[in-house]
């Protein structure tokens, strides 16, 4: 095998070539300066291997370390060499024409749409993951966030003018606040009067929908029943009612499945009966809350039949009851 030592080559003038025959090597002990191009169908290698251990570009894909990639593959280091892998990352489909910061992902893995947070509304606590909207309160302080901390029940929230400061819910700005929370299978809608920025929020629960389907608020019925008080009393249908107690003729108690918060509630009942009687039109009325008979656990009622000046307590088969209260 013949070799050409470059330090013996003084100058190759224009138009001339340095030719290394097949089976021979050009060995450069120091640096090789190329002013023009390296062209041809051979390769540059660091060994005598026919494939080379550096890189080469053929008419197809790039080859590095003897390994040729396929269309679309990317080159990665394996620690002991290189490998070609399919391009990953899932970034296709994200197109941005923003002229300023449009999305920030902070060190707590929280995401803000609309630029960096202007104040505490960035929810920067490890126990909270948040997607918030707008760089400042001019956007309303809207956020979607989840809370998880050992020893406490996790919950998911959608809120306005609220941030969690690590201890409690606080106002972002001096204004009203509202929040919708899902926790342990319940839905809770909370509202708060106007408060000072960064102060704790004192919530009022406007509506709670329990996991058993009950809707608790001042504007939803706490219980209702439609029942037959004749024969063996029985429910036609009911809500939050566990049993009927048949006390005597025409006197019943509806026992609530879940007690009300107070015995001071409004109960309205009716009996579906009217007809012409011997003393004129006769009808039945259902009466509730007699002399404090009702409690937070039950509503007691009686059915009265009025026929002219005659009245008596009687059974009825179409008795309705609706209860509103705490």
């Amino acid at each position, binding site marked *: 095998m013949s070799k050409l030592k470059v330090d013996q080559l003084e100058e190759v003038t224009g138009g001339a070539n340095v030719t290394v025959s097949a089976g021979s090597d050009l060995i450069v002990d120091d640096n090789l300066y190329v002013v023009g191009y390296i062209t041809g169908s051979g390769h540059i290698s660091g060994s005598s291997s026919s494939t080379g251990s550096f890189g080469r570009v053929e008419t197809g894909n790039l080859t590095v370390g003897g390994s040729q990639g396929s269309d679309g593959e990317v080159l990665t280091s394996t620690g002991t060499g290189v490998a070609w892998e399919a391009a990953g990352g899932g970034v296709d489909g994200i197109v941005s024409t923003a002229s300023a910061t449009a999305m920030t992902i902070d060190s707590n893995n929280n995401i803000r749409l609309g630029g960096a947070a202007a104040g505490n509304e960035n929810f920067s606590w490890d126990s909270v993951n948040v997607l918030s909207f707008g760089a400042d309160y001019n956007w309303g302080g809207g956020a979607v966030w989840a809370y998880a901390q050992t020893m406490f029940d996790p919950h998911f929230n959608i809120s306005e003018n609220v941030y969690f400061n690590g201890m409690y819910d606080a106002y972002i700005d001096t204004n009203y606040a509202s929040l919708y929370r899902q926790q342990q299978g319940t839905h809770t809608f909370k509202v708060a009067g106007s408060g000072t920025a960064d102060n704790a929020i004192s919530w009022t629960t406007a509506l709670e929908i329990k996991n*058993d389907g009950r809707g608790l608020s001042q504007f939803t019925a706490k219980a209702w*029943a439609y029942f037959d008080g*004749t*024969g*063996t*009393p*029985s*429910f036609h249908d*009911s809500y939050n*009612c*566990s*049993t*009927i*107690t*048949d*006390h*005597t*003729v025409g006197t019943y108690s509806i*026992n609530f*499945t*879940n*007690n*009300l*918060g107070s015995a001071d509630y409004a109960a309205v009942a009716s009996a579906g009966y009217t007809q012409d009687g011997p003393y004129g039109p006769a009808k039945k009325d259902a009466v509730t809350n007699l002399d404090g008979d009702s409690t937070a*656990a*039950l509503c007691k009622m009686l059915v009265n039949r009025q026929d002219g000046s005659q009245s008596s307590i009687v*059974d009825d088969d179409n008795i309705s009851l609706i209860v509103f209260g705490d």
Partner: protein
Amino acid sequence: MKIIYAQANGILAQVVPSPKFLATLGGTEEEKMIHIANKDIPTGTKYEITDADLSDRSFRNAWEYVAGDNEKTSEDLSLDDQLKYNHITQEEYDANAG
């Protein structure tokens, strides 16, 4: 099935469950009725569970409760059930739970 017991005035009361509530309970039919008795009649009341036909309401205001062989006494619900049925507050539960 139903529960019967004597009211303070001596007249028999009968307690009939709603099908919806009954469907939420576990255990045998008798276990469900015992749970209902503990929930809906005053604690310490002697009662019986019966499937006797009481649909004829003749002389209803004169019905009397007579103890049978299977008389039971209503008891307090567990703390968990008292909380579940809103008989006690969370604070009362926390104060009494061991």
